[in-house]
């Protein structure tokens, strides 16, 4: 399977201290995405020109030879046993902190078979599993994943379908249906709302999101508000692509906005947490 990062001491990707596995490839193209290198399923070479020391002869495509890692291969093939071995290194801290492993991306469900195999193996090893997903996938896929993980972390980006298409490239219809399905199945999940001033922090979207969440038979009732920041910009430069090509206005939410969203959720009976 193609993994582009393994992050230890991940403290914002579910309960406790976790190791997060980043799958490469995503069906969505969110304009604000902070890791656009996860979009393509193919390994890529990223170039960070700040690190470049202009060697007389550049290693070019042979990025592993780049002295400074200015050129870096993003996405490597991992075998399941090797991945498990890497994850096992953190067993003690996962157990002591009530943490575990989070599958993230990209979109892990885009790699259904690999993701499922990994989750099953983690289950055999007794490790707690989270899946951070857009839920842009077939219901059967989600059902099978749900049987093999403890918690989902699900993004709720925009309620207006036209806007959703405009900003993420796909319709939210499947996503909202799948959220409902998860709730009805009794699966455990957190909702995460990325807050981007200018895109989804308006009263209407927040109101509609809350109204939607209220209709769910959902025990956890916990929403993480993730304030937008523009780290994606730098990643696009490294990929040689353009960030926000259509020039949408996107800003980090002000403290007032964060507060307003948090209050609205709290008043509706949800637990709102700023940050992951």
């Amino acid at each position, binding site marked *: 399977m193609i993994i582009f990062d393994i992050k230890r001491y991940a403290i914002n990707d579910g309960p406790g201290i976790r190791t997060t596995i980043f799958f490469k490839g995503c069906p969505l193209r969110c304009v604000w995405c902070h890791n656009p290198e996860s979009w393509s399923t193919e390994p890529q070479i990223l170039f960070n020109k700040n690190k470049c020391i202009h060697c007389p002869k550049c290693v070019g495509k042979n990025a592993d030879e780049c002295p*400074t890692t200015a050129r870096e291969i993003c996405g490597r093939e991992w075998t399941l046993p090797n991945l498990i071995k890497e994850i096992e290194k953190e067993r003690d801290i996962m157990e002591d902190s009530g943490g575990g492993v989070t599958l993230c991306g990209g979109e892990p469900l885009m790699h259904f078979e690999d993701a499922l195999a990994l989750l099953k193996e983690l289950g055999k090893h007794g490790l707690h599993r989270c899946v951070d997903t857009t839920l842009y996938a077939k219901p059967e896929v989600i059902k099978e994943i749900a049987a093999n993980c403890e918690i989902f972390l699900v993004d709720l980006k925009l309620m207006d379908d036209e806007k959703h298409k405009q900003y993420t490239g796909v319709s939210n219809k499947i996503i909202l249906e799948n959220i409902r399905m998860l709730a009805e199945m009794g699966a455990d999940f957190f909702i995460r709302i990325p807050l981007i001033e200018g895109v989804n922090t308006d009263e209407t979207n927040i109101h509609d999101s809350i109204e939607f969440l209220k209709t769910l038979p959902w025990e956890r009732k916990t929403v993480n508000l993730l304030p937008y920041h523009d780290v994606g910009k730098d990643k696009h430069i490294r990929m040689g692509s353009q960030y926000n090509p259509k020039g949408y206005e996107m800003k980090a939410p002000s403290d007032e906005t964060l507060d307003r969203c948090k209050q609205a959720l709290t008043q509706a009976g949800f637990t709102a947490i700023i940050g992951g």
Partner: protein
Amino acid sequence: MNFQIKNPENEGGMNERIKRLRKQCFDTPTTLSIERALIETAFYKENYGTMPVAVLRAKNFYEICKKKTIYIGDDELIVAERGPVPKAVPTFPELTCHSVEDLHTLNSRELQRYTISQEDIDTYEKEVIPYWKGKTQRERIFNHVSKEWEEAYHAGVFTEFMEQRAAGHTAMDGKMYHTGLLDVKARIEKKISELDYIYDPEATDKQQELEAMAISCDAAILFAERHAELAEKMAAKETNPQRKAELEKIADVCHWVPAHAPRDLWEAIQMYWFVHLGTVTELNGWDSMNPGHIDQHLYPFYKKGIEDGTLTRDKAKELISCLWIKFNNQPAPPKVGVTALESGTYNDFTNINIGGIDKNGNSATNDISYMILEIQEELHELQPGLSIHIAENTPDDFLMAGLKVIRQGHGYPSVFNPDTYVKEMTRAGKTLEDAREGGCSGCIEVGAFGKEAYLLTGYLNTPKILEITLNNGYDPIAKKQLGLKTGDPRTFTSFEQLYDAWHKQMIYFVNLKLSVNNYIERMFSLYAPATFLSLYIDDCIEKGKDYYSGGARYNTTYIQCTGLGTITDCFTTIKKHVFEDHRYTMDQILAACDKNFEGEEQMRQYIRNHTPFFGNDDEYADTIAVKVYNDLVDAIEGRPNTRGGQTHLNMLSTTCHNYFGSVCGATPNGRFAHFAISDGTSPAHGSDSHGPTAVIKSLGKLDQTKSGGTLLNVRFTPALFKRDEDIKKCASLVRTYFKFGGHHIQFNIVDTETLRDAQKHPDQYKDLLVRVAGYSDYFNDMTEQLQNEIIARTENSAV
């Protein structure tokens, strides 16, 4: 879980008295006092040679206690100072005598200034300096050492702690709270009466030492009595009835302690303070003096006071806060031979232990432990240092409360693991009970409180020894042949050959250091016995022997090894790129180091980014680190010292990794010349890139129980400590590290931006305390080099 500070009536923080005392302490400049030197010099002139040295030292101490200017300030409840006024630091010419030039430098340098008047400098020049010429401990040491030792010392292969200060690192157990000095004196007299001058060949020596101890009891009692009298005089004149009553109480307290065992919390605190001052007045021991597990010692008095209605929590907190101010009133004595640029610190490394376990292994955290955390957070002074002790059975609440103080970013408290350090001590031969009553003093060094003389003797620069090895025994910086000729590494055909060569050099330098350690220990035994401190360290009275002569129950000598991260990275670089991958030849690496990587940035970058380094939970590097560590242990451990004890190692660097880096050329791991080497057992700067959990796993592979302490610095940005949820995760990190056998971990909670801004606008960051090594210091008081290093320490930002 309840994260609230307990007893909400105290949320108001410092009361008005403590605010005033704290302000006075912060506003008072640090000065140098020549009073002690004058009293001592006059006494020595008249008496040296007329009595045994132990008695001479005790009478000298008595003379100081009798004659020194005493001070009781407005608002004070706990009284007495080391100098004539707060923050006036005495000198100790019998150990090391400041020159006129030193005094001028100290008076005028920008950092850590000690002001002194021209008049005092003139008096010092006339009265003090001539007498001590040729008679100081420092001269005794430097006149004795071999050329090889001196050259290695000046090249920075090792340092020597005891050339300027007496060995210290001493912490107290609870006995002073149960026994007054009159009882102690009676015990001493009984001991003298029982001496057997026929069958005990040491009886005369013992008699002299015991008599000296008895004089030391009298001296401390006299010192307290003088304060009682002064308080009475002040009370008689005082018109404010509240203050009058306070002064009368002070007089009562000082009449009672230290002659008798304390009866209430006030007396218990004043008791400790007199003992503290006695110790730092008779000699200038490293790490001043330390009350040890003060929460355990004070708790019975607190409990009794609360129960019988004579004490409230607020009053108890006020009294303990007064003690905290007293600690901060005692800046460390300055060194001699100082340069204007050299940075020192006012911090004298009192490291108070709270939480942890009692002698039966039960959790010892009590309400005073929490109260002290509150005090530390409210006062945030430079001194005293504070550490929380987190055993497996320590409540999570206490760890969380401690981490919340750490979050403030003042650098305190550091975090220690009793479950490991008890094992360190029992492994080194201490009984389980004595080990449990022990803890950590100074930076991270472990000791059996109240029962052990553990002398730290100096740092060993392991990367420097590698540099010397890579140059066949020659030091390219000092331009001298310092080590053995272990061969030109260009001719080596395997990594093992290089490692063996380093190993030979390391043993050579350890031996060189030990030979002088033993000599210095004898000099302290012969010329500077600590007859007052000996009263409080078991079994000095029982044995009739001084603290410096093997009187303590346990007698340890430590060598502190530094640079484990740096040397490991150097070894992995050479192993991988020269002997395994053949990417570079040894000659290429050595040539690059020689020219400080000039023109070799490509190589340097490749090494920095493509070598397994220590601190990443990478077996390749960690295996080498473990080997280096074990070989250091084997080289040092178990060597006999002069006091019937043994030498051990610990892994501490304080700020010495800066000095050691400054004398070290560029190293194979891509470190530029003169840049700091790694601190304590932390990974080298910028070497760890897999987060704090990988760091603790790497560190967990060292059998830390073989040391007398290790040190791990982790720098966290405030972002990682924002929410209670994050603090909880940090608490798990601590718990897991300790499960791996970690001895110590400390957190610097600051962001780089803040620090850069503090460099630019020092005025706005006057109270910015950051953790340096085993202690915290004001960022403003540091050299630019040290500031830069603090900034460069890997920032574990998990955004």
